């Protein structure tokens, strides 16, 4: 019998050994129980906390060939690191919700016809039993991934202190709805105006990302986010000044811009604003619909996971039950 394999077709033994070492150098991820219908889970990572170059290399090995190529096209170590972490966060987070039966490197992604990334449920012979929905957002100092089951979700995070380069009212005039421009113009103190701008910005971004129709599918000026003072407070005679509900108004004749979405706005880690938008559950009655259940974890995948819900790291601004 002729030799079917030439010697040079076999991978080098040293490569096999080093690859296996890389795969097994990462411990297994703890699985996470699935969110319920009205729940969103948020996992976030702080890039500055990753200082171990060999861990970054292990992370890189989890990426698909296409993702690795994208990383190569990014200039600058800090940006490369964030890009790697972003993909690793999505892959490891999704893996947790399959009871860790699906290895992070196996997930495949596609884009819906408007460009919104989605995860394939069929991966070779494997089938991901839950319809996991996810959405990522990043700043240079934090990357977050929101997860729901079945329900479309959009998230957006921003550094609390972020100051737009351009004049806030110019930006609002150009991109926001007239109501929102008036709302922002009503603030005399520049810092408050900046803070309100960021709140509106993150909420609008979260909505557009949840809708999944792209920036042009849901132009910012075609819908209004407003804050309605809550009349029902725990202590009726002393409503907290922060107590308000996040409402959305869309043009009455708009087919694409639906209004059955609920919002939450939280402060994360004392440094970031996070807006979460998910579709309302019509089966819920009345005011139950308006509040979102959120669980938050801070993670450095394979190193440490910390549940941050019920701690000072997650401060509800509006919308959480």
């Amino acid at each position: 019998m002729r030799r079917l394999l030439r010697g040079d077709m076999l991978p080098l033994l040293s490569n096999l050994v080093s690859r296996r070492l890389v795969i097994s150098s990462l411990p297994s991820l703890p699985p996470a129980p699935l969110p319920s219908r009205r729940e969103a889970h948020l996992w976030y990572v702080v890039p500055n906390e990753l200082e171990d170059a060999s861990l970054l290399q292990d992370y890189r090995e989890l990426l698909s060939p296409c993702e690795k190529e994208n990383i190569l096209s990014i200039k600058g170590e800090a940006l490369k690191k964030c890009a790697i972490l972003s993909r690793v966060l999505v892959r490891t987070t999704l893996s947790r919700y399959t009871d860790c039966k699906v290895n992070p490197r196996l997930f495949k992604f596609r884009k819906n016809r408007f460009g919104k990334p989605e995860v394939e449920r069929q991966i070779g012979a494997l089938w991901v039993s839950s319809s996991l929905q996810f959405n990522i957002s990043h700043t240079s100092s934090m990357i977050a991934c929101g997860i729901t089951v079945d329900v479309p979700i959009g998230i957006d995070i921003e550094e609390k202190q972020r100051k737009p380069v351009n004049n806030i009212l110019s930006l609002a005039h150009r991109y926001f709805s007239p109501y929102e421009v008036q709302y922002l113009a009503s603030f005399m103190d520049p810092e408050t105006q900046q803070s309100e701008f960021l709140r509106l910005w993150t909420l609008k971004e979260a909505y557009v990302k949840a809708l999944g129709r792209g920036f042009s599918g849901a132009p910012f000026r075609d819908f209004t986010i407003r804050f309605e003072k809550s009349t029902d407070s725990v202590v009726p005679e002393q409503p907290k000044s922060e107590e308000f509900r996040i409402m959305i108004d869309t043009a009455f004749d708009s087919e694409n811009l639906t209004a059955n979405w609920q919002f939450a706005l939280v402060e994360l880690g004392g440094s970031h604003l996070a807006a979460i938008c998910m579709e309302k559950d019509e089966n819920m009655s009345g005011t139950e619909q308006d509040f979102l259940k959120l669980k938050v974890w801070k993670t450095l995948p394979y190193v440490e996971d910390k549940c941050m819900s019920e701690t000072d790291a997650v401060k509800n601004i509006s919308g959480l039950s």
Partner: protein
Amino acid sequence: MAAVSAAFVRFASLKPGSWSNQTNGVTSGVKFVTIGTSKLSLLSLRYSRFRVHCAAKPETVNKVIDIVKKQLALSDDTSLTPESKFSSLGADSLDTVEIVMCLEEEFDISVDEDNSQNITTVQDAADLIEKLVLQKAEAA
């Protein structure tokens, strides 16, 4: 190639002299070349020698680079090329809309959401700007 889907494209040289150096024999008096073509041959046109002369002027590209550097607070010695991708520079969505707004003010044009979604590189932005500037000049 998302940015241009028109069945024909007008290439304008605002410097008549720039055509005269070409080997295609176009004389220096020609200011406009109108080409009717299918999308496929448009693509091949883009990548033939015509592309060099019909892409945005260097001044436009440089202005885009200046605005992007300012928005993203990049140091002066950061090298940005026409092929630089906004996403690879760390621009997020707020950066992108700020950049678009600055470009609109700088060139006195209006970029709608459909167009701005298709801009991925500095070159894309410069090409779109020149197309919009031209459309505006013709409409006037």
